[in-house]
């Protein structure tokens, strides 16, 4: 079962997304902030990450940049409740596979997750 990490500071959203992913046959692990996730990801690499952009402390963009700096290539779907024109580009530049606005349509989210996983699966040659 593919594993998806959910990184969001809002507990209600972490719970709701975990349920949605589990109901769709995915294994969900959730983290309340960027640092917690980075520590866990160093131990065990998830197949995909659903990453909130605006979080207290470390922002989603900072997480992306840290991963990039560390040379860790992960399949990342950025989600945000506050959409600004230039952030999508910044996230993609920093290595995100998709950028979605909250509230999230389940089909869009699941499609983005599977597309992100396909794009970054190491043993499939492109």
């Amino acid at each position: 079962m593919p594993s998806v990490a959910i990184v969001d500071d809002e507990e209600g959203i972490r719970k709701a997304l975990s349920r949605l992913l589990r109901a769709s046959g995915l294994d969900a692990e959730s983290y309340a902030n960027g640092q917690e996730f980075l520590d866990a990801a160093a131990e065990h690499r998830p197949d995909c990450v659903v990453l909130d952009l605006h979080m207290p402390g470390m922002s989603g963009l900072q997480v992306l940049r840290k991963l990039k700096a560390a040379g860790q290539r992960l399949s990342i779907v950025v989600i945000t409740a506050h959409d600004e024109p230039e952030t999508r580009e910044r996230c993609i530049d920093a290595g995100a596979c998709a950028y979605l606005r909250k509230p999230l349509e389940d089909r869009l989210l699941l499609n983005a997750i599977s597309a992100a996983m396909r794009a970054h699966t190491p043993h499939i040659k492109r």
Partner: protein
Amino acid sequence: MNVEPAAVLRTGRVEQGLLWSALAVAVGYYLGARLGFLFTLQPHPISTLWPPNALLMAALLLAPARWWWMLLVAALPAHLLAELQSGVPLAMVLGWYASNCSEALIGAALVRVFVRGPLRLDSLRRAGLFLLFGVLVAPLGSSFLDAGLVTLIGFGDGDYWTLVRTRFSGNVLAELTIVPLIVTWASWRPRELRDALPKRFAEIAAVFAGVLMTSVVAFELPVFDANTAPALFYAPLPFLLWAAVRLGPRGTASALALMVVVTIWGAVHGLGPFAGGPPQDTARDMQLFLISVSVPLLLLAMALEEGGKAELDAHEQRQQLTHLSRVAMLGELSGGIAHELNQPLTAILSNAQAAQHFLAGKELDRHELSEILKDIIAADQRAGEVIHRLRALFKKGESHLQPLDANELVREVLSIAHGDLITRAVEVLPDLAPNLPLIEGDRVQLEQVMLNLVMNGCDAMTAGGVDARRLSIRSRSSDALVQISFTDLGLGFRAEDYDKLFQPFYTTKPQGLGLGLSISRSIVTAHGGRLWGSSNPGHGATFHISLPILDLGPITARALN
């Protein structure tokens, strides 16, 4: 020729207004004349108060000038009806019609030169113009005409100058008593009756009962002899002053009219301190007394009205500006507010869609479904709270003082600004003293001040390109004050700019109105507190609010705890 329907309609309505006014003038004139006859001293017929002229002048002062001729014409049948009943020769009746009209016309025309539109007696300037032209010049002019006509026609037996003098003082008293009464009551609306509190009715009743009783005692009851009577003249004064200070020009004009009527009624029936001598002396003394009481009281009422109105206007403008700047601030917050609403909406949608997936599956986990519904309800309530908090800030209303916990206000403001703080990556470090004493204030206005200081701090850090965006909020209390300080890590301000910060329309922000700090300071000052700032250039700024502690009696304090 084409006539537009709208013009026809408008003309139709104007004609109807004129007809009603003319009818009111005719009826009023006739009743006024009947009342004037009742106020005539016997056996030598001297009218002490002749209402028709004053009524006519009041009508002209209130009506557009193009209606004047029609209103004067409307008075003629009423005049003929009233005067011919009393057996006066026709020539004299017509002569008096001319002199009555001349008085109303002189007064109204001269006032209209200086005041456009219907006269309102709510400022000293307008009151002064009315007193000069309506009460002094018009009666003077028409008295000469009146006395001249009487002498010419040979009606009555007084000499010319005596006639001028009695006509003049009678007309002055009538203008002074009746015109303000009609003019102030013309602006009365039934709404005022509905809006008034029972306490107000009780006060009005007390004032008028007081005026009535003191006037009856002083001017009608033969209780006191002539030696004590002069002191009694002042008996109604406290109640008249009460009317002038608390009831406005309308109440004052009504109270004065009541005293005038009671006094004249007494004199006409041979009662009170003015009766007893020759009728001419009675009329003169009484009229001079009533005039000298009425003028200063009317002026006082109008001066107070003017001051009160100016204060009310300024108060209303301040309220509107405060509301405007609050709404502008909420506009700046809109991105953060969208974030705050999107979060619970996301939880609701994802939970609901997860439930759909669960329902489509083979096994139904009732416990899971019930948890999902619980979370949906909680998220929905959170969205409702966001909207509820916003609504309170958007609302426009009178300030409402209540005991408040400053820490709670800080927390409330932080939840309103939460989305904005998160999206601008500002970290808040609250350092709130426990058991802070209560303050008294308007919740919405004080939240507005705090929100303004929070947002200024955020703006200073965003604009300064500061990496570490930290906003410290500290609350402390001393013996008499609660102090809340907001410290940011922005660029601060230069000492020479400090005073400008609090000036209206001074801003360093590209989209700023420049009202925030100036309005915040006026709100805090109105709460008996202080708002000030300190800066370490390059190392941020601190803004402090201090507010007086609510002085609660021990019983109230215990009840609140």
